[in-house]
């Protein structure tokens, strides 16, 4: 990679940061650089030596000027009680501060980083001893520690810059140690480290080339954050008289000296060093916080950061609203694909809502040109759907403009129906499922209509439009009328709460009037349905296996008899046998209760086993939809055909794959989005957006495909109904 590309790559997260953040970082950098400049060039800038007694130039023999001269053209910041020029002392103080920060950091780095690496990599007793020691140092009040060390070093060697720097440095050793150790621990778990061993690399090589290089990236952040703190510690030491001894210029000490004169109206001796401290600390903090924001997402993208991004993941305080964290999982990454640092800027892009394209624009063809009464999206015409989705678009802000992970989806779900939503990573299925209950990360965009039908009568059960629903309305619906079951059950259960408490909390939130006995009864029944005996109801989540925890999540999801359950890859982290058990339970559940199920999965087998209807998604759009038997036996869209052919089953004798990869959704191609990979592509395919229509050779009404191989799918064609 060229140096320029490297730079561009490092700068990318900076560009992704918000405008304010960028400005603050720049200000911080300028302030810090200013200080470095002053500190380096100090002697040439200052008119006097910081320790030079000021005499009256006109009457040198009269001796020193009266001390505490007010600021004047000769002495810009005045002189202090020792008769030193304050300006010179402030500048000199900058140099002392810089030296102490650098030396102390060096000490902390040289001790903390290797120890952290060693402890993290080797583990065992050495690790435990070091961690205990460092924790002891860390919990010790840092200023007190610095004083003790400064005093000791002063006695043992000589008080001076070196002693002060060591005192400050020792305070920060535990911080470097902790960050480096924790980072090493997580990097050590990465397969590439074991991979290096399997290649025959020596331990030293593994630690340096594979571990250290990845860990060291976190050092600049700690450095800038600690540097500000170090400046304050140094000043405090000086103020208390344990720092750099006089007459060396040091801000803290100077302020302490000057406090004696404040009462006599002398302001300049305290103010200027004080301002210097504030400015430097502010500058360094701005840089540190900024770097933290910029570098952290970078580390996170590399899967190495243990630190959280700022801000709650989604929708504020809702406990069930967090996205799975960490490295993108195999199953579906589209929610992460578009996620970006909170608060990123965006503009209305050319890919804005399709409404802007006008009624005749090809982009609207798949929706607007359908006859308004066509029951095409419903499995059971005539039955009021429990969930109705119209022209749903779900997007994320990115530095390059909005990414529409779901781009114009229409769906109906009948009560008691199970709909499978399949597709590969990034097709939009997870974004769709999250948007259905409005569980979007900050910066997520949702437009269109999602209507949840009324559930009987009574307050709180009326038909509701979820896209514009308030947070309170959504909270009252989630877990009661509609619930979501995720992939990793353990991250959804509070390890410190008994299973029964999870249920009590969930039930009471929606049915505050239920008696405790009734709550208990509901809990036990729901769990028993999932095969969990009442004797285990009061256990903690960690006392259950992975499959049991997923059963608990399912039980939690259905305990209040919701109208709608959305299951997002509910069995992906489970083994095949446990998966089959859970799928059986789901199937049973649907037979007994009239719950509508949306099953999001990448596994066609799961759809075939559990669903009535299937919707195949590709690049943010539904490309084919219909009854499971129909779609599996006679797939009409080339993508569905390819997906089925590439699925490896026990009968597979020959491998198939779909060439190419999915399109960039920030700048999607014109026409059919599958065109670049489609074996049947024609010129016309890149000109029009195919609409969902019934393929001519299909036996059932509600089988639809969006491919112009089928007459009627080209928006220029008449609709099949009009043809007849």
């Amino acid at each position: 990679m060229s140096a320029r590309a490297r730079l561009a790559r490092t700068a990318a997260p900076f560009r992704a940061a918000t405008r304010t953040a960028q400005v603050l970082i720049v200000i911080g950098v300028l302030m810090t650089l200013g200080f470095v400049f002053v500190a380096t060039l100090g002697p040439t800038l200052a008119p006097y030596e910081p320790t030079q007694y000021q005499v009256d130039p006109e009457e040198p023999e009269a001796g020193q000027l009266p001390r505490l001269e007010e600021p004047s053209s000769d002495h810009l910041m005045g002189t202090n009680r020792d008769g030193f020029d304050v300006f010179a002392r402030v500048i000199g103080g900058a140099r002392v501060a810089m030296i102490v920060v650098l030396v102390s950091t060096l000490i902390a780095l040289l001790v903390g980083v290797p120890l952290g690496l060693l402890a993290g990599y080797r583990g065992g007793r050495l690790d435990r001893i070091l961690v205990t020691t460092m924790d002891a140092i860390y919990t010790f009040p840092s200023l007190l520690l610095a004083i003790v060390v400064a005093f000791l070093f002063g006695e043992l060697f000589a008080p001076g810059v070196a002693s002060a720097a060591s005192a400050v440095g020792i305070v920060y050793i535990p911080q470097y140690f902790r960050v480096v150790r924790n980072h090493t621990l997580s990097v050590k778990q990465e397969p590439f480290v074991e991979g290096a061993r399997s290649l025959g690399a020596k331990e030293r090589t593994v630690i340096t080339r594979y571990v250290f290089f990845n860990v060291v990236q976190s050092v600049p952040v700690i450095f800038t954050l600690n540097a500000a703190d170090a400046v304050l510690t140094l000043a405090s030491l000086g103020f208390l008289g344990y720092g750099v001894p006089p007459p060396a210029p040091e801000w803290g000490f100077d302020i302490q000296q000057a406090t004696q004169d404040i009462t006599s109206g002398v302001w300049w001796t305290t103010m200027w060093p004080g301002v210097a401290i504030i400015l430097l600390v502010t500058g360094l903090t701005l840089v540190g916080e900024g770097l933290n924001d910029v570098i952290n997402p970078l580390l996170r993208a590399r899967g190495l950061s243990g630190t959280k991004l700022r801000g709650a993941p989604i929708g504020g305080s809702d406990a069930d609203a967090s996205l799975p964290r960490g490295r993108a999982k195999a199953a579906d990454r589209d929610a992460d694909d578009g996620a970006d640092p909170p608060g990123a800027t965006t503009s209305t892009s050319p890919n804005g809502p399709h409404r802007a394209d006008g009624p005749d624009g090809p982009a609207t063809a798949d929706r607007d040109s359908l006859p308004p009464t066509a029951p095409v999206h419903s499995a059971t015409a005539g039955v009021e759907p429990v969930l109705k989705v119209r022209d749903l678009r779900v997007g994320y802000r990115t530095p390059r403009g909005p990414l529409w992970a779901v781009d114009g989806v229409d769906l109906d779900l009948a009560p008691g129906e199970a709909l499978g939503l399949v597709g590969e990573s990034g097709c939009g299925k997870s974004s769709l499922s999250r948007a259905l209950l409005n569980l979007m990360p900050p910066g997520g965009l949702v437009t269109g209509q999602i209507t949840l039908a009324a559930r009987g009568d009574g307050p709180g059960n009326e038909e509701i439009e979820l896209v514009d629903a308030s947070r309170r309305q959504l909270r009252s619906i989630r877990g009661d009328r509609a619930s979501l079951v995720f992939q990793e059950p353990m991250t959804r259960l509070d390890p410190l709460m008994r299973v029964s408490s999870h249920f009590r909390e969930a039930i009471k939130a929606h049915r505050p009037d239920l008696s405790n006995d009734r709550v208990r009864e509901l809990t036990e029944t729901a769990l028993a349905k999932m095969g969990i005996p009442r004797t285990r109801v009061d256990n903690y989540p960690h006392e259950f296996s992975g499959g049991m925890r997923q059963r608990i999540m399912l039980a939690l999801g259905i305990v209040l008899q919701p109208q709608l359950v959305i299951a997002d890859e509910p069995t992906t982290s489970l083994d095949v046998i446990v998966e089959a058990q859970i799928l059986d339970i789901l199937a049973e559940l649907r037979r007994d209760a009239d719950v509508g199920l949306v099953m999001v999965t990448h596994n066609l087998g799961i759809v075939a086993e559990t669903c009535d209807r299937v919707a195949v998604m590709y690049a943010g759009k539904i490309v084919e939809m219909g009854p499971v038997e129909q779609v599996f036996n006679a797939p009409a869209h080339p993508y569905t055909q390819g997906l089925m052919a590439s699925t490896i089953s026990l009968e597979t004798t020959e491998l198939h794959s779909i060439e190419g990869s999915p399109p960039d959704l920030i700048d999607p191609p014109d026409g059919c989005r599958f065109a670049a990979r489609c074996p049947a592509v024609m010129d016309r395919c890149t000109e029009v957006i195919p609409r969902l229509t019934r393929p001519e050779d299909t036996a059932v009404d509600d089988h639809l495909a969006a491919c112009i191989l089928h007459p009627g799918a080209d928006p220029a064609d008449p609709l099949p109904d009009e043809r007849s």
Partner: protein
Amino acid sequence: MSDPAAATTSSSSVDGGEPLLDVVDLHTHFPVRGGLLSRHKDVVRAVDGVTFDIQPGEVFGLVGESGSGKTTLGRTLLKLADPTSGSLIYQGRDIAGYDEKQMRPLRRELALVFQDPNASLNPAMTVAQGVGHPLLIHGLVDGRAQMRERVAAMLERVGLTPGERFLDIYPQDLSGGQKQRLVIARALITEPKFVVADEPVAALDMSVRARVLELMLELQRDLGLTYLFITHDLATARFLCDRIGILYLGNMVEWGDADSLFDDPQHPYTRSLLDAIPLPDPRRRDRDKNLPVGEMPDAQTPPKGCRFHPRCPVAFEPCGWEGADLLAFFERRWTVVDGDQVESELAATGSLQAADLRDDGVRFDAGNPVALSKLLEQLRTEQAHPLFDAVTGIERDGGGIAVTFGDGPEPDLQTIAGRQVACHLHGTVPRER
């Protein structure tokens, strides 16, 4: 039925060929570390007595669920985990006891491909550095220029063309499929003989999987590689592998020729695995699935006798019943019988948590010993569960009731239908420990 004469269907002892790797009674146990003050030492028996062999040029599939020990076994074969006992004969040399230094020259012949391509590449190294590093480690190239040349050639070999274009980028800039190609390139650049591929396509999308698998097969044919293919996906294993071993809780329960194993599974666990696969065919939705109950227990305290017995749908008397099975029986029963019955039975047994598990059975600190012994006798007569066939005694023990079980030996591998199978259904052959 399989044909025992086919070269790959039987172990080395039958066909006489020299195996590339001969694994005999291999154990890999890990100590479980307690807290800072804990003196208590437990072990996880991740691999617990595995015997099989890998023939040169074959693809051997190691199939198991998570917790079966398949990854540990793979790592042990490459000596990335140290075997506790047993032997590991690689081309005539027992490398089980080799230390890291003795292993180092062998490392270029043994390669590893991981499941997650995102995590198996060092993000701090460019493609050239990462893929070329093994060449430098083993001193196989003179200088950087030659290394880059070799790397570029290898990249083209795995379908990343033109190779030069990839040399100076970082792995993070590639797609999942490309990254996995990179991992394969790195594994193969030292021209190894034996490659352990641990779920190499599990993290990839369906439409990309086939391409990576095809590449792996092509390289295997062209370079004469031998693969150990570790997977939980039976369908992929069947397509890819010549022979397959099914691992359950640290034991190989069945191994042999892939096709015959799938067409006619001889071990109940193998059969369950096959039944459990969700089929992409809605017409077969209502087929009979004979699913095992529960989940794989942890390898710290494996069940007695046959390790699969608590879950086995066809388990019978000699399979190793013990006290824990009786407790699990009650727990499961109480999710299906009605509430009043649960109350009365629970009153009889007392808290199950308080029951005392012993070597020969279990003692209930019974709430009502008379009622409990009556209940147990009744369940025994009803043969409510095969475990009752193994009950040898139901006796008063102080204020409680002690239930004792007869011996249930661990099944040893026996040759059935040209395969190795460890199950009492084929005759009780106790295994020696």
